[in-house]
């Protein structure tokens, strides 16, 4: 009887020791893992202001934000029409054009293909929006994926119009 109790107590002590050991090792390893996440200086560069007064209708400008290209396109009436008329059932990642813009004239998107991160080419592809040369994804005039291996629409970053000519990204 006393023998049995002793074994129980020993097992408890072993388990407790292992548990504390595992927590300790975990606490020591976490800083080594987390140091690889974006550091404060990288996070500090999180907003960019862009003056878009010089952009003609139909033109796209590309600016760099957090090391990634951002497409700012001033769309023509025809392009806006095309984008808003698309039947949502035809889309791989259904999203209304009006949900992708704050002002339909200005389309602001992260210019990174959602497949494997290449930069798509403007005014190219079967849907006259963007075409990714790496693995052949086609995006429409709203930056939505229409054909090819990419799973999602081009991402819309957080942005706001500071005034009529200035867009603040981030």
């Amino acid at each position, binding site marked *: 009887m006393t023998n049995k109790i002793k074994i129980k107590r020993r097992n408890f002590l072993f388990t407790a020791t292992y548990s504390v050991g595992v927590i300790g090792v975990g606490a020591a390893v976490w800083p080594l*893992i987390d140091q*690889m*996440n*974006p*550091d404060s200086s*990288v996070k500090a560069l999180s907003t960019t202001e862009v003056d878009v007064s010089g952009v003609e209708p139909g033109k796209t400008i*590309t600016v*760099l934000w*957090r*090391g*990634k*290209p951002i497409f700012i396109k001033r769309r023509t009436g025809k392009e806006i029409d095309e984008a808003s008329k698309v039947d949502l059932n035809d889309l791989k990642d259904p999203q209304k054009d009006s949900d992708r813009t704050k002002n339909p004239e200005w389309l602001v998107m992260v210019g*990174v293909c*959602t*497949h*494997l*991160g*290449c*930069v798509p080419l403007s005014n190219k592809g079967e849907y006259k929006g963007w075409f*990714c*040369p*790496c*693995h*052949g994804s086609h995006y429409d005039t709203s930056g939505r994926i229409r054909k090819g*291996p*990419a*799973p999602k629409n081009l991402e819309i970053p957080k942005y706001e119009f500071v005034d009529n000519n200035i867009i603040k990204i981030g």
Partner: protein
Amino acid sequence: MSEEKYIPESKLAKWFDSRLPLLTLSHHLKEYPTPKNLNYWWTFGGILTFCLITQIITGLVLAMHYVAHVDHAFESIEHIMRNVNYGWLIRYVHANGASMFFLAVYIHIFRSLFYGSYKEPREVIWIIGLLIYILMMATAFMGYVLPWGQMSFWGATVITNLFSAIPFVGESVTTWLWGGYSVDNPTLNRFYSLHYLLPFLTFGLVILHIWALHVPGNNNPVGIDVKKNSNETMPFHPYMVMKDLVALLVFIIIFLWFVFFAPNALGHPDNYIEANPLVTPTHIVPEWYLLPFYAILRAIPSKLGGVIFMFAAIFILMLLPWLDSSKVRSATFRPIYKKLFWLLVFVVILLGYLGAKPPEGIYLILSRLATAYYFIHFLILLPLLGRYEKTDPLPMSISDPVLDKPGVLDKVKNAAANYEGENVNSFK
């Protein structure tokens, strides 16, 4: 091992060896019994060791001049090429050395596939070998990023984005890998650190690979077990060492031909353009040795699916000793497997070719067919073959295939008689 126990001769050697048995180890390596019928396909283990050491030495020297910073990396490579004494030579040896390393490893792997070297009792050698191969690919990929050219940058972008296909945590994993929101300076720095580390891990695995080899001993072209320390084996030194050296010399000639006459033939010219995060090159192609896997990635019309199939193409090889259920090792005695082996070689080369082509039209269709065949070979054909293939009769000993040929035995006897006769004459 059934070798006789080694006893050092001198008193000092005995004293030392009983404290650290290095002399016993070197005796074992020298006397290690190798099958006497090993052919030149067996020399690539030694060649690969040479490649690893060459890469480590040239890499060590390059690291003395290279600067791992996005503003200076590209410049520092040009500095190595133009200003550093013999920098051009050392860098070209390192860059082409990577290609030669892979050339040798592919021959080594296909040797194993042909002669069934992965089969019982050598499964652990095979799996460690594959781990070395995976480390080699990771090291080569990160090394290719360091010059910070266009292919470096976009190759790194595409490959790291593979991890974004992981459901739920993909985004955070890629951000963690990058240390930012895109491939940038933190990424370059950590790749440099890991590129320096991984070869030493590889070296450790190579030691385990050889250790695991020395337990059962070498397979051989006939694929039957040999009796150790019989007339079927020869000591590793000098017999296999000399054979390895002959093969190594030929290999070095080819290696240096690339270094001196076509140093950029295996690289991509776009990597001499500095990295630009705003412009993607029209065709992103990895280095030639990764092309078959790249073709598989692009053959699958889904992001996650492509990534899964690409990794599966490598990891499926780990299961090979159990997928191939045939007890006969060497393809010499497996008439159907021999044909399928060459078909697999063809399909892998075809995938490599397709990986370099744009993923459209006929190239895409062929990539899909070749990818399907690759998996069918391992998952369906090999298990079926183990059951239904009628194999040729195996010889009783590794000497039989040579001695059984008509007239050979008489020739040997005559030669022996003549030799004795000469000796007898010279004594007179």
